Structures are given as structure tokens and as C-alpha cells.
């Protein structure tokens, strides 16, 4: 009898199990190490850049990186302001307005937007979108020059930070739409039917039952979109004609650059300290996107905890 028990006990410690579990934990630790590695290696290569910025650019690191941070934030915010209403609208169409039969294909179509590589968006932005927007810029500069954003003189190529923001908006649409759509679809059916039974129109039902339920999810979706827009490189590098100034003017031909685009444009030809400087600016970008994503996940997580209670 005791031998059987011993055998079962031994069964719990089978070598195959130990090896397999060890491999699984090792894989999980690889991820931990990779993330730590990103921070450590960027710091190791970046710190000489921060310290040596004065030799390379005749200015401190902060004054080198600040215009880039400004440009990154401006482009991402333009993208966010344009993309969010569209994304919420598209998500509503897929989750609530479209008939069930065509809702799924519509979802695929939105996903197609995400399938286009960023470099193709960039090339399309220069050749098609930029020139199409020039008349709009000219009109804005003529009619509302007192708004600092549209002070002009209007760019003749359309390669402005506003165009870059529009391209970014198109690129972050699918991710915001996808998350919003999922959360809208999760709204309890009983809440929605109760609202309709009380005589609410479809819009009133959405406003009173769907939006309050989905609010934190929408916020975190927007922030994830913001994170994407902050780190997007090639579309901006191609579209923007950057001169590294800090300006509120969105439609002129002198534009602030973004961190990511600046790295992509300079890195291939950079040597020595310039490389370290670019890596240091990448570190700043990493910190910004990390903070934004962290906050987004925290908001999403805390609302999930509240809902489960």
C-alpha cells in the first residue's frame, strides 16, 4: 500500500514535468529580461550621448531633445483629435448600427487599414494626401490667419505637421476602433433593453447605457492610440519636411520634427557620438510611450476591477 502512495508522490515529481515547467518559466523570464534589456542597453549606449551632447551640438541634451519632444507630442495630439471621433463612430457602426450580417465584413475592412505598412502610408502621404491638402492650407492661411495654428504662410508641398497628423490619425484608427468596438459590444444587453423599453431612442440608449459602461475603456483605447502615434516613425519621416523649430503653426513649411522621425532620418549616416545622442533621444521616446501605455493599462485594469466587484 505504501509503495502505491510513494509511486503517486513520485508521479508528482516526474522529470518531464519539471523540465517543461522550467522551460515555461524561462520563456516568461526572457520577456522580463528583454524589457529590462531595452532599458539597460539604451541607457548604456545613451548616457554618453546625454553627457556628450554639448560637444556634438553645442547645446545641452535638454535643448536638443525638447523641440523633438514638442513635435512628437503635437503630431500625436493632432492625430488623436482627428482619429478619436471617427474611431468612436466607426466602432458604434460596427457594434450597434450596422445589421449583424454586414457588421463582420465592416470590421474586416477596418482591420485592413491596420494591414498597410507604415512606409506605404508615408509614400501615399507625400504623393496623394499632401498635395490634396494644400488648397485647404491656403484657404486657412487666407481666412483665419489670426488663429495661431493656421498663421501661414501655407506650405506649397503639403508636407506639414498637420498632414503628418492626418496620416497618423489614419494609422491609429484601427486600434482605437477595435478596442472601442469590443467594449461597446460588452455592454450588458439588459441595460440596453431596459433603456429601449423605457422609450429611449437608439442614440439615447447609447448615451445612457453604452457610454457610461464603456467610458474607461474608451479612455484607455485613446491612450493606446496615443502611444502608437507617439512612436510611429516612417510615415512622419517621409511626410514631414522638418526643420526642428518649435512653432504653433501647423500649416507652414517649417515644422518641428518628431523623435522617431529624427532618428530614422539621421541614424543611417550617423557615427560616433551622434549615434549615442540619437539613442538617448530614443530612450526619451521609450520613457514617454511607456508612461502613456502604463497609464492606459492602469485605467483599463482599474475599471475591470470595479466592474467585477
Amino acid at each position, binding site marked *: 500500500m505504501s509503495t502505491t502512495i510513494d509511486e503517486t508522490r513520485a508521479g508528482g515529481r516526474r522529470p518531464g514535468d519539471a523540465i517543461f515547467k522550467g522551460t515555461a518559466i524561462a520563456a516568461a523570464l526572457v520577456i522580463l529580461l528583454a524589457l529590462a534589456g531595452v532599458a539597460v542597453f539604451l541607457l548604456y549606449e545613451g548616457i554618453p550621448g546625454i553627457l556628450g551632447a554639448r560637444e556634438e551640438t553645442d547645446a545641452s541634451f535638454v535643448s536638443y531633445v525638447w523641440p523633438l519632444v514638442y513635435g512628437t507630442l503635437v503630431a500625436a495630439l493632432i492625430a488623436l483629435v482627428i482619429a478619436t471621433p471617427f474611431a468612436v463612430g466607426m466602432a458604434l457602426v460596427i457594434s450597434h448600427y450596422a445589421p449583424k450580417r454586414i457588421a463582420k465584413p465592416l470590421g474586416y475592412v477596418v482591420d485592413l487599414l491596420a494591414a498597410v*505598412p507604415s512606409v506605404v502610408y508615408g509614400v501615399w502621404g507625400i504623393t496623394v494626401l499632401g498635395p490634396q491638402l494644400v488648397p485647404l492650407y491656403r484657404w486657412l492661411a487666407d481666412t483665419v490667419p489670426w488663429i495661431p495654428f493656421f498663421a501661414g504662410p501655407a506650405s506649397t508641398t503639403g508636407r506639414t505637421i498637420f498632414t503628418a497628423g492626418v496620416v497618423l490619425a489614419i494609422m491609429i484608427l484601427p486600434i482605437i476602433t477595435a478596442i472601442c468596438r469590443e467594449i461597446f459590444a460588452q455592454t450588458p444587453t439588459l441595460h440596453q433593453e431596459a433603456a429601449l423599453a423605457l422609450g429611449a431612442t437608439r442614440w439615447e440608449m447609447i448615451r445612457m447605457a453604452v457610454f457610461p459602461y464603456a467610458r474607461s475603456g474608451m479612455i484607455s483605447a485613446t491612450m493606446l492610440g496615443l502611444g502608437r502615434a507617439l512612436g510611429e516613425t516612417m510615415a512622419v519621416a517621409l511626410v514631414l519636411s522638418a526643420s526642428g523649430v518649435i512653432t504653433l503653426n501647423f500649416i507652414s513649411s517649417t515644422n518641428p520634427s518628431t523623435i522617431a522621425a529624427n532618428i530614422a532620418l539621421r541614424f543611417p549616416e550617423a*557615427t560616433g557620438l551622434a549615434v549615442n545622442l540619437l539613442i538617448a533621444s530614443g530612450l526619451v521616446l521609450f520613457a514617454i510611450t511607456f508612461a502613456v501605455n502604463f497609464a492606459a493599462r492602469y485605467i483599463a485594469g482599474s475599471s475591470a476591477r470595479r466592474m467585477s466587484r
Partner: protein
Amino acid sequence: MSQTLEKKPAPSRDAMPLSGPRMPGSAPYLVAAAALAVGVGLGMILGGGLIAMAILAGLTFIVGITVWAWALEGRRSGVDRLVMSVVWAAFAVALVPLASLVWTVLSNGIPALSAEFFTYSMRGVIGDEPGGIYHALIGTLLITLGATVISVPVGIMTAIYIVEYGRTARLAKAITFLVDVMTGIPSIVAGLFAYALFVLIFGPGVRLGFGGSVALSLLMIPVVVRATEEMLKLVPDELREASYALGVPKWRTIVKVVLPTSLSGILTGVTLAIARVIGETAPLLIIAGSTDSVNFNLFADRMQTLPVFIYYAYTQPGVPPDPSIERAWGAALVLIAIVMLLNLLARVVGKVFAPKTGR
């Protein structure tokens, strides 16, 4: 007194009607037809283009259906119709860039396609001599293959750890959170990481294809983990318990029961992850570099890839510029086609490998 009471009409159906006038079911179509007529008519009179006509027709539709509903059914119904038409309009407007992009790439890219385009590299190609994307195709395939070989085992094993072993462990929670955060790493930062890593080994100015694989796997792993995790969670616990009851060790249960059950979903996730990274430009620009020649060796020298080829062919076309820009559009078409095919493949794979229920 009692007379006056009798005479005063009690609040009846006339004062509070239970049903009001309703719009006909065909109202949206009627308004759409009218709006189309207005848009085209005004566009022709004022001499606007197709875009102006479309905008005009859209605005007319929104205003028309709102005013009609408001006048006939009241304010609330008017607002409802307004929101509905605005939401659909937003959807339509958002698809315009997609249509424009696909059209631009197709019309500019198709003339570039030829047998030479797929079988020639750019080595020694000047001006409008025949040159192609063979070297870039090889590079993209090898680097993506390398990234897949790194990411798939790591990703799947991590998901197995999270779902099967660490349900409640603190490490599992931390990993889940970090994977979420990892999804948001900018691709260019992944490229800088690979560069900073390989600089320590090979010295400054390093460029190699394998570095691209490492950078891409950093972007790919979270996608694989997420997809696998979701799939493993869908496997019913009864299956695991039945296997344990037969005395099967945990690891064999995972390999022989859990993984086969979720295989279709995992393969779909992996394919989508490949589709996501195959179009990445920024990390490859940094660590894999650019070259005109074919390079089959992942571990030495620069390697051309399709996205980087598009970037340089477009931004530094040389003299005369036209052939190079045409090649850029051709490569863009090929790249989009590859990504779309992968997306399609993911759906097919999901269907083919779906677990046989035996029913």
C-alpha cells in the same frame, strides 16, 4: 358646479396621443436620393469636382433627414437620426483614405511588375536598366523567418506559463502586465535596442540581418503571447481534468491535449503577428541597413528588406528618378499583397486547423 366638471374635457387621447405621425420606412432612401440629386446638381452648376459633390450630397442627407424627423416626430427622434447619419458618414469618410491608398498603389505599382522585377537585384543598376526586388524579398523573408523562430517558442511557452502554471502567481501577473506594455514599444526603439545590443558584440556601426530579427521579435512576442493566452483560456478545464484522471502528467496533458485543441487559434495568432512585423521599416533601417546586393547570411553584413527598399527607392531615387520611384510603388504593391495574403492565410488556417469536435 357639477356641470362645469362634466363639461371640462378629461385628459384624453387627443391631449396625450399614444401614437404620433411616423416617418415611412423608406425615408432614408428617399432622402438619400434627393441628397444625391442636390449634390450632383449643385456640383454641376457650381462646377465642383467629384469630392465636392460627395461632400454636398452627404451634408444634404444629414440635414434633410434630421429636419424631416425633427418636424414630424419631434426633437428626440431628430437627434437620433442626426447621430445615426453622422456616425455612418464618419465610417464612410474614414474609408476614403483606404480606397485612395489602394488605388494609388495599384495604379502606380502594376506597371513596375515584371519577371525581372522579382528575379533581379539592384546590384550595379543605374537609371532605367532593369532592376528588381529579389534581394529585398530574400532579406524580408530571412529576417522575418528569424524573428518567427525566436518569437514563437518564447511566446507560446510564456503563454503556457501564464495560463497553465502561474494562474495566481505574482510573476504571472507581472508578466501579463509587461506583455501589455511591450505591445506599445515603438518599433524604432526596438531597432535601437537591437543596435545597442549588437554594438557591444561587434563594435560601432554594426549592421546585420539577425539584429533585425531580434528587433522584430521584440514586437512580435507580445502579439504571439496575447493570442496564445486567449486560446489556452478557451480550452475547457474538463479536458485537462479528464487527462489528469487518466494519470497523464501535466506536461503531456499540455502538449497532447491543450495545445492541439487550441492549435487553430495559435496558428492564426502567429500568422497575424508575422503580418504585423513584415511591414516594419524603422527597426530594419537602423540595424539591417540597406544594400543593393543579395545577402543570404543573416549573421553578417547589411541586408536589404522590402520596406527599407521602398523608403530609399522613393527618397533617394537618383538620376533619372522615375524608374526608381516606379520600383518603389511596385515594391509597395508586393509588400501590401504579402501582408493581405498573410491575413487571409490566418483566417484559412483558423478554419482548417479548428479542432474536430467529432459531431
